């Protein structure tokens, strides 16, 4: 199990490689990577977080995933600070004996990180700065679990 909250970029290829080769007994590894979508006019994405609570909240979400599914391992890396379009914001990885568990746990982690981990995104555009509003669909997504 690994949870990292950091401002530094992470090496996606190296993380996936290390996670996969370290996941003993796994037959299936799913990864998700979130990227600052290079939307028209977007110049930067600033991510604020709540130090202390962030690590607690993410660890709690990972522990819940481990309780619900048969997982060999799980990983969450989430960045904060100022990111440019095209940069990776975060990743999750899940390893399980079977693919169903790996997929379900990865989607569960993403749904919960979206709405229950204390991060807030602010977009900078030519016209100014805007806090990204939470989507009703993201809150709705939690109900399926």
């Amino acid at each position: 199990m690994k949870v990292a909250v950091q401002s530094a970029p992470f090496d996606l290829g190296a993380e996936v490689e290390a996670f996969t080769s370290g996941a003993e007994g796994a037959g299936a590894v799913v990864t998700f990577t979130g990227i600052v979508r290079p939307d028209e006019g977007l110049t930067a994405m600033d991510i604020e977080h709540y130090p202390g609570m962030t690590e607690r909240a993410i660890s709690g979400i990972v522990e819940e995933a481990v309780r619900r599914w048969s997982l060999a391992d799980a990983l969450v890396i989430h960045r904060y600070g100022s990111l440019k379009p095209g940069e990776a914001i975060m990743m999750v990885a899940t390893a399980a004996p079977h693919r169903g568990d790996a997929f379900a746990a990865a989607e569960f982690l993403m749904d919960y990180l979206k709405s229950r981990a204390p991060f807030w995104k602010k977009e900078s555009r030519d016209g100014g700065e805007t806090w990204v509003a939470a989507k009703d669909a993201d809150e709705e997504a939690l109900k399926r679990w």
Partner: protein
Amino acid sequence: MIDVLYFAWVRERIGLPRERLETSAVTVADLITQLRAREERYAAAFADLSALRVALDQELSSFDAPLAGVREVAFFPPMTGG
């Protein structure tokens, strides 16, 4: 004494990230009532509670939760991680 933290636009509207307060508030809602009464910037930040979330000692909570024993209260908009 209680630490009160503000994040995202709540922090921007109030103009500071955290402060230490002496309060007699029994619940989060009481504390919000006291904060609103302090200054216009607080009233503006706490105008619409449906746009706010609260954490007590770093656990998500609700506005009717009691403050007894709580050391850190944080107010922020709905989270947008991932």
